[in-house]
């Protein structure tokens, strides 16, 4: 395997999914199943022949589940956006740190050269 191949394998290695990913998938699946089962279709005649109260309960439960699903989605979106912002922050700090270290290295180099020059003169 060439050097580039090794670098690519290293750069493209699998990375961990965000924390809580599995829980969010399971919650989404459960939510979608619940929405499907409570808002299932019935024939027009059957709807009006059923007692109103259970029908209203189903409607309210459906709205609550959908609202809950939307809220969940919003929370999840905020979390993933937050993670992305965090990574941006760390990237910025890495870049700043590396350039500071470049400056320090250059200063060290000067000091060493100056010391050498002084020794040569002596």
């Amino acid at each position, binding site marked *: 395997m060439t050097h580039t191949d090794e670098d690519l394998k290293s750069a493209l290695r699998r990375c961990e999914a965000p924390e809580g990913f599995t829980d969010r998938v399971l919650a989404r699946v459960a939510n979608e199943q619940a929405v499907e089962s409570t808002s299932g279709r019935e024939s027009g005649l059957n709807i009006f022949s059923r007692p109103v109260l259970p029908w209203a309960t189903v409607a309210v439960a459906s709205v609550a589940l959908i609202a809950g699903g939307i809220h969940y989605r919003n929370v999840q979106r905020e979390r993933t956006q937050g*993670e992305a912002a965090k990574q941006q922050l760390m990237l910025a700090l*890495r870049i700043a740190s590396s350039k500071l270290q470049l400056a320090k290295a250059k200063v060290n180099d000067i000091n060493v*050269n100056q010391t050498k020059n002084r020794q040569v003169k002596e």
Partner: protein
Amino acid sequence: MRKTLLWILLAATPATARAQDLKIPADVEKLSAKAKETVEVTMDGPMLKWASKFLSAEDPEEKKCAELVANLRGIYVRSFEFDKEGAYTSAEVDALRAQVRAPGWSRVVGVRSERDGDNVDVFFKLENDKMAGIIIIAAEPRELTFVNIVGPLEVDQLADLGGEFGIPKLNHESLSKAQKGEHK
């Protein structure tokens, strides 16, 4: 043999009046048109606070970042990589340096290297004798980086982060090896 010319300014350069709120100068943004790759980070105070909520106290690197950014008011980074040397001119870099002029700003490091073409300037901002910001302008043959960090910070803490992120700490020995070896 090319003579190496290195000099350093340690005395504070008096500042002249300029806009107080320096984030990213317009001249820096123009350079993105020439770059083949650009890294842009713009985070004001509220965004910084929000992003740092997601830093984990259990991860040593993230914990250090959280401590560093706790009181910052902004981080602005533009880093450009170019296809070839000479994509930007020294006049453009001089213009950038000239824009870092506002009360309280002092240039504390200015390194020019003819040998490898790396030029680095570091500016500190002081308010009531305390560090209130740092600007770094690093002009390398194929890379130009502008960093502006607003707010109180420990410079050594920032420099030390390099070791935490897996970027080797630059010391004299490693720099010498780099200069002898794979220097481009």
